[in-house]
């Protein structure tokens, strides 16, 4: 973690931090705890475990697609509560990707904090208008006859993509499979 000393927002944030600590509204421990939680305990590995289980367990996969919120309660993930999780499945005919054009809604509990590009204006403005071009620029060149479905997370519903299992991974264990699943594949900007 480097300190961007020159960012004016950094100094203003530190000024506000020191005022809030004096007022007893914030502690340095709370800040450290946030860093540890999101650097080490909450991240895309949670989502990867969900995907891996769906690949090897057809009953779980069905529960996941029917009611994602209940299905992930079979794991015990820490982190931001998800009011309602909808899992959308990539198939031979449909590719899904997720965005939040109005802010940066993202399924923290399964994917951790979103990457910067997910929160930046480029992705938020363009993925709803020219998804095929944006995905291609990001390295995912989809055939023209593959339907692309974009899910713009405009209320408290959160979306996660269930990527297609790569053929070479058939027969691997749940734990091995979870290692293969990337964050970007669960946002829908990568295929595995």
């Amino acid at each position, binding site marked *: 973690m480097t300190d961007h000393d020159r960012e*004016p927002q950094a100094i*203003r944030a530190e000024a506000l931090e020191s005022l809030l600590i004096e007022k007893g509204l914030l502690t340095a421990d709370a800040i450290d705890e946030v860093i540890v939680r999101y650097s080490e305990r909450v991240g895309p590995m949670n989502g990867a475990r969900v995907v891996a289980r769906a690949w090897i367990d057809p009953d779980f996969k069905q529960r996941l697609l029917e009611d994602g919120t209940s299905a992930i309660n079979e794991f015990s993930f820490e982190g931001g509560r998800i*009011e309602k999780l909808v899992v959308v499945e990539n198939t031979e005919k449909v590719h899904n990707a997720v965005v939040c054009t109005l802010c940066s809604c993202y399924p923290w509990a399964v994917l951790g904090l979103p990457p910067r590009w997910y929160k930046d204006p480029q992705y938020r403005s363009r993925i709803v208008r020219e998804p095929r071009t944006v995905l291609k620029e990001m390295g995912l060149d989809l055939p023209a006859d593959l339907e692309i479905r974009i899910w713009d997370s405009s209320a408290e519903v959160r979306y996660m993509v269930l990527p297609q299992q790569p053929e070479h991974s058939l027969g691997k264990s749940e734990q091995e499979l979870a290692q293969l699943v990337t964050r970007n594949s669960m946002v829908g900007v990568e295929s595995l």
Partner: protein
Amino acid sequence: MDGIHDLGGKPGHGEVVVEKDEPAFHSRWEAAVFAMEAAGIAAGVWTNVDRFRHAIERIDPIAYATHGYYGRWLGGIENLLVEAGVVTRESIDARMEKMGGSLQDLVASRPNLVPDPVGDEPAGRGSSRVVNRKPKFATGDLVMTSRKAKSGHTRLPAYARGKTGAVVLTHDAWVYPDSNAHGQGEDPQYLYTVQFTGSELWGAGDENIKVSLDLFEPYLSAVDGRKLS
């Protein structure tokens, strides 16, 4: 609000920039801002996420475009803290100058002189609420979205105004952000996931694109009772 935050479909933003091996936080101050949001909720300074999102939408538009995600959060948090009287703009300015910052730097926050009412405590956990009426729409219904631009918080983006789509998922009634963000009560409304074709949203083009949004019942009106074919 037709603010700079409403980015869907806006032109000119160029290629997505992907950072390799991005850390959870780039600097300690980003984590500090993250913790401030939770602290504000815990201290009861802001009572709901809608109010928080609207506080971010209300920051200086140039700061919104240039200060990054946590810079935007910082501006929103400052709006809410100053409006609640927890800190003053002057005390932050003074502390910032003492720490070597310059007030020439663009300050993101734009606290309202007359803040919205605080509003009641949330009626329950999360957003879902039980209401005593039936939903107007069902899966497969064709609906038309409102044409009207709102001046306050709303979750109907400009690009989806006045467009016809099909309900693909139905949800419970949820706290209505357009009311809740302004301290005017939770006013729960049924929520629907509505799918639009790319050509409906953007004019003729790639026919193989669908975009769906989660839209509240007041944003929607029936299209001649027709169903999706």
